[in-house]
């Protein structure tokens, strides 16, 4: 059987940073094909090349055996590729019918929309997927699951050959997921190929036929799902030896609790938020680095957000030493001596128009107040000393931050927090997207400050960084803290085993 879609030798770089290198994807008609990989492995870049959002640098994309040059989302749609995004691209304020039929409405002889027929067609399309709803009602009045099904129905009615589902289940509950899966099977019966992107490995075994595994911009494996094990998939995703993981996993997880010197700065006790945190207990002491381990979607960033006062607690309690009882916004958190280096430098970190100096002192500004203005002299001294001590490469402190390299931008943002002389610093992927040299420098800077008594909560997808850096690692899974590993004694294998082990326990 020829492949419906054959992507091979795909390369793509963004501003010199390689995102894909010789990536492959082979999709057969009527199969459900999963694409898995860690953050930054290149899954979404690959999909976006297929859907015409990005242009490939090299490689070939063949549909039904013939080379295509899809370069816009519209062309992809015309070629029969439909995408269901996590954030729905529908119009919630219009009726279900309008959403299903948009752009393809049946017309009357006068050229007006034939609503009678449109409603009938929309109803028919939805019923095929076992969705029986009032198509005249506003789409927004239905649940996310129904909306997602409407999106799929729309795709099907447009005679899509391939439906791409990007994290389709992330906002659905169990029952809704069942409905979605039923629809997926229905589509499959009709010969539609489904490209299924998910972080939840359990789903893969329920619904997918084959799986493509990506790591560091490359396709590292393609398997029939029934011939794989979760341990195998994880080891391939992470690039580790499965026997090693298993062997390490057998020698006992969690480790014994040991007494740790240094007073407790912060203690989060069984906290949960509306944003995916269910039950997490974590504490940070003075002069230690506590790592948060876990796969994407396990709730690592959500812990950081809760501690920084961005998401309100639903349950549980956060206790600060010398701090206020409750932190309800970032300004409070900063007053309480907490800093938060976010993972998304561009969207949540830098202020692109502003200079290195202005970016660095943004959080510190209230403390630089003098006679109603900003104390320029102190500001310049401070910025100068940080540029020097962190080795920030910039033409001058007045250079706009957007002109700096990723690593130097990150150092400026790190300095933004270090300048506050914080008690606790939350670092979310502090070395993502920076080059090797800067990465090492950033890690040493953090270590220096920890030796002076700073407490750090470190979130990292790089196991090496966690294992070598953290004194303790709290392992998260599905919003729960499941175990804690203590250094010395933690190896990458043990960490991965902890993550994998609990995965298997979760499936049972």
């Amino acid at each position, binding site marked *: 059987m020829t492949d419906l879609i054959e992507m091979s030798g795909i390369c793509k770089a963004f501003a010199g940073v390689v995102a894909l290198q010789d990536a492959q994807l082979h999709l057969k008609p009527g199969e459900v094909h999963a694409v898995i990989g860690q953050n930054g492995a290149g899954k979404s870049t690959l999909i976006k090349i297929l859907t015409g959002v990005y242009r490939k640098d090299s490689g070939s994309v063949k549909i039904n055996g013939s080379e295509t040059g899809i370069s816009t989302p519209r062309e992809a749609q015309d070629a029969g590729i439909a995408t269901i995004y996590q954030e729905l691209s529908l119009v919630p304020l219009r009726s279900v019918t309008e959403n299903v039929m948009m752009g393809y409405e049946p017309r009357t002889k006068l050229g007006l929309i034939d609503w009678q027929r449109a409603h009938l067609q929309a109803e028919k399309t939805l019923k095929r997927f076992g969705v029986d709803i009032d198509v005249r009602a506003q789409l927004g009045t239905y649940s996310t699951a129904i909306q997602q099904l409407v999106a799929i129905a729309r795709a099907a009615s447009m005679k899509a050959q391939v439906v791409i589902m990007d994290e389709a289940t992330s906002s659905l509950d169990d029952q809704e997921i069942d409905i979605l899966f039923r629809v997926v099977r229905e589509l499959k019966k009709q010969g539609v190929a489904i490209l299924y992107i998910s972080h939840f490995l359990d789903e893969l075994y329920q619904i997918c036929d084959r799986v493509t595994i990506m790591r560091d911009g490359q396709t590292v494996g393609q398997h029939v799902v029934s011939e794989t094990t979760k341990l195998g998939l994880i080891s391939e995703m992470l690039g580790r030896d499965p026997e090693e993981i298993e062997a390490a996993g057998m020698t006992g997880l969690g480790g014994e609790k040991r007494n740790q010197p240094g007073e407790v700065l912060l203690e989060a006790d069984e906290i949960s938020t509306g944003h995916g945190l269910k039950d997490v207990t974590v504490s940070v002491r003075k002069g230690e680095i506590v790592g948060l381990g876990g796969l994407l979607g396990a709730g690592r960033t959500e812990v950081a957000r809760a501690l*920084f006062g*961005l998401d309100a607690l639903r349950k549980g309690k956060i206790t600060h030493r010398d701090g206020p009882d409750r932190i309800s916004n*970032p*300004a409070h*958190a*900063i*007053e309480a001596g907490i800093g*938060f280096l*976010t993972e998304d430098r561009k*969207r*949540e*970190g*830098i*202020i*692109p*128009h*502003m200079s290195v100096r*202005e970016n660095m002192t*943004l*959080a510190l*500004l*209230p403390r*630089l*107040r003098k006679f*109603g*203005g*900003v104390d*320029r002299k102190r500001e310049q001294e401070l910025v100068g000393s940080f540029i020097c001590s962190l080795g920030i490469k910039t033409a001058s402190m007045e250079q706009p931050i957007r002109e700096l390299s990723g690593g130097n931008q990150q150092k400026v943002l790190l300095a*933004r927090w270090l300048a506050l002389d914080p008690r606790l610093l939350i670092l979310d992927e502090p070395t993502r997207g920076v080059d090797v040299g800067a990465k090492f420098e950033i890690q040493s800077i953090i270590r220096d400050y920890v030796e002076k008594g700073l407490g750090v909560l470190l979130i990292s997808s790089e196991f090496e960084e966690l294992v070598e850096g953290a004194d303790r690692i709290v392992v998260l899974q599905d919003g729960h803290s499941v175990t804690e590993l203590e250094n010395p004694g933690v190896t990458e294998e043990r960490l991965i085993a902890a993550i994998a082990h609990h995965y298997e326990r979760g499936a049972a």
Partner: protein
Amino acid sequence: MTPENKQTLNTSGTSGTRLQFDWSWVSNNGGVIALIVILAFNVIVTPNFLNPQTLFVNISQVATIAIVAVGMTLVIATGGIDLSVGAVMALAGAMAPLIFTSPFAEANPQIGLVLSIVVPVLVALLCGAFNGFMVSYLNVQPIVATLIFFISGRGIALVLTNGNLQTFTNPEFSYLGTGKILGFPFQGYLVLLIAVVVWWVVNQTVFGRQLLAVGGNEKAARLSGVPVKRVKIGAYVICAGLSGMAGLIVVAINSASDAARIGNLMELDAIAAAVVGGALLQGGKAPIFGAILGAVIIQLVKYTLLANGVADEVALIAKAGIIVTAVYLQQARKE
């Protein structure tokens, strides 16, 4: 006066040749070039342009646009827009004569004068607080939030005055619009004072830095502990306060208050001046003196067309042309 203008004429000649070669230079200095071109054109074509009287007329007319444009620049710097400035001018302008012609003020002229300036400005500040509250706490889009006063503000002013033209004789109050210091109109000094103070606020204070940060990247600002809501409200309050002042000046110039006409279409002039002055509509930049320059350009274009017998309606089209050009140059600057 004369030699100075001759000089600007010469520079315009040299910039004309550069204009063809270096586009980025043109887009970065578009405002200054436009000003020079207009001045040169007027010196050659418009009769009596170099007469001091012309200068005074232009200063007194540009003052209100410039004052409101400075406030507008702050709001635009947060990524917002304020459509209510003209209506707030009308409201403040309508209140002032009501206050100083009231029996109480007639009996206590000093207090009455102070109140007739302070109360309208306070009311304007309240309008701004309302705008800011709508935008930051209720997350209403700025264009909609300020549309509320755009519509109702002038309505309230008309209700207060029964829709009548109020004329008055009050030399002390009229000083705001007709007073002269060292031969130059009082409001010219006021514009300079406001510009310097606001420039200082934007460039030297914590509030100013936070204002630009909110416009530059609101998420990042919030995560850095910037009180985003308060900063936004601050911008709208300052903008409305300045609009209120501008309204008083218009009334003082005319010694009459017509609620239907004060500040009519001012929002468009102010936005145009801010944009011509280099403000980015997506926020993050607050070129205060740019806004003044923009106001001067718009005023001069109006004057040029008027002085040369072009109809008012055509002047509107010219204004639109300036805005299009300014926005185009802004886009070009972004590469």
